[in-house]
């Protein structure tokens, strides 16, 4: 795995870390994405839009959970359109789910252990044969899981079945699990929804710390204030199309954005 290096990536203009070109997706008569083109660079990018704007569909199309009808997705210099989720995760593009999907019957530690890539013991032959590599990989995975759990203050819950966690802890687990896959970019679908303010602050602090270490984030969030305060770049979707994008201040004052949100939320 190569470490994320922001300076190398932003050297060539136009060659963004994640670039979506003219993406279209329909569900029957509903046009969910109507030719969206956006570039996502390093740092924290916010994706906002009124309900039904196509945010989650865009996520699903980027991460391979849905196949777009047309258009291209490029990530880290490669065309990834139509690639399967597992391939993308191995490639460094990982997502969280809007509704946390922790594996309830498994412990928090097991949830976290699952994320470490390329474990020898996850192969059938590796598991049957075992040996030193098996042990070394498992120890490495445990160490990473424990460190990450400590970072997200979940370490006292490691042996707890994930189904017993509170809503906010589930969100943390979801993010922790995504980070353990060694991603270059993390797509977080409403990581702060239903989370109390102090935990929300904690999640945001963690995201900032990790951003400083070189992770890129694409954040879907309903709370526009959070996006405006914490993102360097904001993308606004409206009715399946890109409405505008730019720095928070520019977006905040954009007439079209205010129109789109009118009746929904005050900016």
């Amino acid at each position, binding site marked *: *795995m190569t*470490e994320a290096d922001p300076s190398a990536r932003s050297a060539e203009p136009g060659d963004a870390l994640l670039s979506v070109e003219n993406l279209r997706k329909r569900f029957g008569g509903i046009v969910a994405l109507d030719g969206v083109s956006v570039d996502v660079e390093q740092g924290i990018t916010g994706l906002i839009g009124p309900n039904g704007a196509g945010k989650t569909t865009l996520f699903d199309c980027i*991460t391979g*959970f849905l196949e777009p009808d047309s258009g291209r997705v490029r990530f880290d210099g490669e065309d990834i359109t139509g690639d*399967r*989720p*597992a*391939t*993308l*995760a*191995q490639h460094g593009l*990982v*997502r*969280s*789910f809007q509704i946390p*999907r*922790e*594996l*309830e*019957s*498994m412990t928090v530690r*097991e949830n976290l*252990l*699952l*994320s*470490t*890539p*390329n*474990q020898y*013991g*996850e*192969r*059938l032959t*590796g*598991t*049957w044969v075992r040996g030193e590599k*098996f*042990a*070394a*990989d*498992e*120890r*490495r*995975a*445990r*160490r*990473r899981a*424990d*460190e*990450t759990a400590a*970072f997200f203050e979940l370490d006292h819950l490691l042996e707890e079945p994930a189904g017993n966690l509170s809503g906010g802890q589930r969100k943390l687990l979801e993010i922790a*699990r*995504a*980070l*353990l*896959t*060694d991603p270059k970019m993390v797509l977080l679908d409403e990581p702060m929804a239903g989370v109390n303010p102090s935990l929300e602050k904690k999640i945001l602090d963690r995201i900032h710390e990790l951003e400083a*270490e*070189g*992770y890129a984030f694409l954040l879907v969030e309903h709370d526009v204030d959070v996006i405006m305060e914490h993102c360097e770049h904001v993308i606004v979707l409206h009715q399946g199309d890109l409405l505008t994008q730019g720095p928070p201040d520019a977006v905040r004052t954009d007439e079209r954005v205010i129109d789109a949100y009118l009746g929904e939320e005050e900016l």
Partner: protein
Amino acid sequence: MALADFLITLLTFVTVYSLFGLGLNVKYGFTGLVDFGHVAYFMVGAYVTVVLTMPAEVAGYAGIGGLNLPAVFGALFPGGALVGWFVGIAGGMVAAAATSLLVGVPTLRLREDYLAITALGIATILNAVFENEEWLFNGPYGVQSVYEPLGDLFPLGLGSFTLNMVVLGGLSVLLFLVAGYAVVQHARRAGRRMRLLLGGLVALFVLWYFVQPVLAGGGMVAFERNLMWLFDPTAGQTGGLDYDRFLLLFATGLLAVAYWWVERTVNSPYGRVLRAVRDDEDVPKALGKQTYRYKIQAMMFGSALAGAAGALWAIQLGFISPEQFAPTLTFFAFTAVIIGGTANNKGVILGTAAFWLINSGTRFLNDYIPSEYSVQLAAARLMLIGVLLVVILYYRPEGILGEQDYTVNVPEDDAGGPGSLGGLVGGGDGD
């Protein structure tokens, strides 16, 4: 027939079906694949093993000829016949796994309810093919010649009648003592209700197995025969170990190997991914696991175990035909797995034992009720199992034992303490 013989037949049944159930547990319990066609791999394993190990020319058999592997290997080196049989059962397992691969590639992409229906359909079709294509495996006439591994050694005697009786009888008593000790140990740790249940079951067993035969006119001879169940006084000149008893021990040995194998598979990072696939397939997918590959492998592994069970089943029956592999066997196995505890290997064995005890043990009630009710009794047996299943699903949906615990045994690391947070970023190649 002495009760001991019945017990041995019943236990061999339980052993073979436990092996069958372990295979299902890999698919259904640990991976969440609802394979309603599990019996097909039982059938394929049985047929392929039998055909690989039987002589080339068998009267009344018109299917694909036998390879006679035991004779081939037996000619090469001493003990080769047994090796030949093991090659045969390995062939049966590979054939079962290969069949499940063919079934799995298209069906494992389906949603689980569709998978269940499709698998059931394919299993039924496969059974119809075996039934109707005589050139394949002799169609409805089946295969009469089933190779018995080590069969020429039995009845096995150690010498004089007394020696046989002392050694085999002593072994039997020892096994009873071990079983009794295990039950007592378990009861001491268990709660009050469990103790009552265990006590009741043991009392019932003693009444049925030891007291009843004596009172029924068997006298001490019946008691001794039942106590020394491994010793068959009628086997050979001087008594000894007959083939049925050997088959039970042999099957138990194979079950133990399979149990160890499945335990090793699920108590591992691999097993972790299987359970993740079972709980929510999108999650391991999103985390970079090729879930489809895991599903295929679990399907093949489970089917291979079913194939091994089929090979043993063929020996016990001494004859196989397509009608012995009815779809109901799959559902019996599902019932056993659910009763004992889904995703619990011990539970599979417990559930299988409970299922077949109820199904076969109640045959004894035939002696006590008027014969005109025997048909009703047969039907009542399945109803009883149905009631048991409903009661268990209502009060303990996770089964008697519930899901097992998992540990991945890894020796402690002597190098490298806990790293700092910086290890998180580049942790992929931390070692």
